[in-house]
């Protein structure tokens, strides 16, 4: 008998489900999307005491079976067995926060009404004790009629007992349906059950209200938030460089080994000029992405992110959004894809659409390679003040341009395309928690892996295809390779369009493959100039020097301005299509962003020329 056993974790947001999931399944998890929606489907393997494996899924946190967001919709459908292609979980594991029992019991009662095999994990009992709450699991068990297991995910407390209860629950015959009651009645029952189960309660001065007094302070709160954001971006650039340099060195070393081992020829060129210089120039940004996600994960897991949303809500309201949009937009500084996916927690559909449409304007890490190379080559490394360099200032200006652009677009959209009643902001502020190293590590590993897989598939394919298009047909005597190549001819066509904004043929050429991902612009410039090099000496020149000898300053600035706005990322467009269920909004996104990019690049170029730069 090889029947696929299944179980699912269900509970309110902030019940500690993810930590429990990580503790139960370990690092080997499969993350995919539920078909048709971009809600993450997290599944892992739990081994029962009998040695039998169970596929455990971690369902999105939900306040009830009445869905008010796409996230909750998935949870509802999976629990009820209505999700197409998704088996109804055999056992439901209800995760309750012991320190917020009354609230979490409301949803638990609703799920128990279904009469399905259920076990309850009374999670975070340690935090409840810290708050002075002593709970009797036996009283809870007799009131609810299902097994209740006290757990502390982080200390692996109660995990074997929980696994045993899941195993036993499978044998239980489903109870006949309990009568359905209204939400208010359920809340009264929940309060009564909690009263009976709470043995003692000493009101201690809770740590988290003290922290809130600091972090939500009308004046100190925002100062802390912006200080923190400053540290984050500082760290992304400062901490990453030694790792990035090491990666770059390693790629160079591999390239040298290939050259030494392989005979000269097309295949060797394909590996060194195509694969290594192309993919390599993107992989070096892994450290920055990991550092940025580290901060985002820490802010999320400690509960600070909800406070940041609270502080930002008023500012977001000025452009017609809410504090909820702050989290997706902050994630978009790492990458618009997780950012757009994070919008699923926004319940207002117009708010959500607006946030999706402006997410690509946040300066994502894929733009960094482009910015870094161009700034490094064209902006002198001079000081303009104490501790402020001109290069850093230009980079900061590019980030600000993206944010200001996004806010302006949101303002316009909310008054035209996504017009409607001002959106609300209702959000539970989770308790402060210490981030768990293991959960952080798992989260970071998953993000890094997604990035590397992207580099290994999309970017790999695109650079190899570009190299082929650049290398064929082969140039005859006295001809320039790039000029005669297929890619060169394609670029001639694009060049006609971008010539008015100051772009030359090489830049036009870089824009074509960069449609796949922005960072490919760097690798394709590198590949182009490597192929175009007339001699070894020229080929060995750093990309920055190559650019300096071929571009003018206004051209470089226009190129930077272009990338602030241009929607050059296939994955983002694909995610936007999936999120909005159609091509209308991604089409709109492409059109308005390209228009902005064209205008911004043109304005930058002609202003710079007029100033005589």
């Amino acid at each position, binding site marked *: 008998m090889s029947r696929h056993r299944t179980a699912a974790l269900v509970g309110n947001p902030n019940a500690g489900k993810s930590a429990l999931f990580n503790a139960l399944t370990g690092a080997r998890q499969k993350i995919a999307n539920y078909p048709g929606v971009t809600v993450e489907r997290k599944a892992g393997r739990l081994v029962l005491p009998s040695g039998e494996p169970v596929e455990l899924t971690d369902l999105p946190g939900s306040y009830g079976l009445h869905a008010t967001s796409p996230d909750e919709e998935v949870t509802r459908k999976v629990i009820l067995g209505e999700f197409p292609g998704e088996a109804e979980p055999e056992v439901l594991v209800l995760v309750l926060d012991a320190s917020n029992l*009354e609230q979490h019991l*409301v949803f638990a009662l609703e799920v128990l009404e279904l009469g399905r095999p259920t076990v309850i994990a009374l999670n975070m009992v340690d935090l409840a004790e810290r708050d002075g709450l002593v709970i009797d699991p036996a009283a809870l068990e007799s009131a609810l009629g299902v097994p209740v297991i006290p757990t502390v995910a982080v200390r692996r407390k109660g995990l074997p007992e929980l696994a045993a209860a899941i195993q036993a629950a499978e044998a239980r015959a489903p109870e006949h349906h309990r009568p359905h009651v209204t939400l208010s009645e359920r809340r009264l029952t929940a309060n009564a059950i909690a009263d009976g189960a709470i043995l003692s309660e000493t009101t201690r001065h809770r740590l988290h209200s003290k922290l809130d007094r600091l972090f939500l302070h009308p004046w100190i709160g925002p100062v802390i938030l912006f200080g923190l954001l400053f540290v984050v971006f500082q760290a992304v650039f400062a901490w990453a460089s030694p790792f990035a340099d090491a990666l770059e060195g390693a790629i160079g070393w591999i390239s040298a080994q290939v050259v030494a081992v392989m005979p000269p020829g097309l295949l060797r060129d394909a590996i060194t000029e195509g694969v290594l210089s192309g993919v390599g120039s993107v992989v070096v940004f892994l450290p920055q992405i990991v550092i940025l996600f580290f901060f985002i994960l820490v802010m999320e897991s400690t509960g600070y992110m909800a406070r940041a949303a609270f502080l930002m809500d*008023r500012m977001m309201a000025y452009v017609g959004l809410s*504090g909820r949009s702050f989290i997706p937009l902050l994630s978009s500084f790492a990458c618009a894809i997780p950012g757009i996916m994070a919008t699923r927690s926004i319940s*207002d559909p117009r708010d959500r659409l607006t946030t999706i449409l402006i997410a690509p304007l946040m300066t994502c890490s894929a733009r960094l390679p482009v910015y870094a190379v161009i700034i490094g080559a064209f902006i002198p490394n001079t000081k303009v003040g104490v501790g402020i360099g001109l290069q850093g200032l230009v980079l900061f200006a590019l980030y600000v341009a993206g944010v200001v652009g996004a806010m302006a677009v949101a303002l316009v959209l909310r008054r035209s395309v996504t017009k409607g009643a001002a959106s609300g*902001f209702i959000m*539970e502020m989770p308790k402060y928690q210490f981030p768990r190293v293991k959960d952080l590590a798992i989260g970071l590993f998953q993000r890094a892996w997604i990035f590397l897989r992207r580099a290994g598939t999309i970017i790999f394919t695109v650079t190899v295809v570009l190299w082929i298009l650049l290398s064929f047909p082969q140039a005859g005597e006295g001809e320039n390779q790039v000029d005669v190549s297929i890619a060169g001819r394609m670029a001639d066509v694009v060049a006609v369009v971008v010539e008015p904004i100051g772009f030359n043929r090489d830049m036009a050429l870089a824009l074509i493959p960069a449609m796949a991902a922005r960072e490919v612009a760097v690798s394709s410039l590198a590949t182009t100039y490597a192929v175009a090099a007339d001699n070894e000496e020229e080929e060995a020149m750093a990309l920055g020097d190559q650019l300096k000898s071929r571009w003018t300053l206004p051209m470089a600035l226009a190129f930077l301005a272009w990338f602030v706005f241009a929607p050059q990322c296939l994955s983002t467009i694909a995610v936007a299509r999936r999120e909005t269920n159609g091509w209308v909004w991604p089409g709109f996104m492409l059109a308005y962003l390209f228009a902005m990019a064209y205008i911004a690049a043109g304005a930058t170029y002609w202003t710079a020329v007029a100033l005589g730069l």
Partner: protein
Amino acid sequence: MTLDRLPIGQFARIIAVDWSLLVDEEAQRLRSLGLEEGARVSVAHRGIFVGRDPLAITVGRMTVALRRAHARAMQVETLS
């Protein structure tokens, strides 16, 4: 008195909610967080800038952030 006018730290009970002032989904969300008739609440924090929006409300063992527009739909009576 409506909830948005409640002084910080003062406990009160929600005695009536004008659900018609709220969008269905928001009403549903507020109810599922326990913000409905009979709930014991207090204002813990107010936002920055003009209007001091949003509000952080304590309800049960939770803190919930909401806008003044939501709080304005809730009639409260103060508790000693």
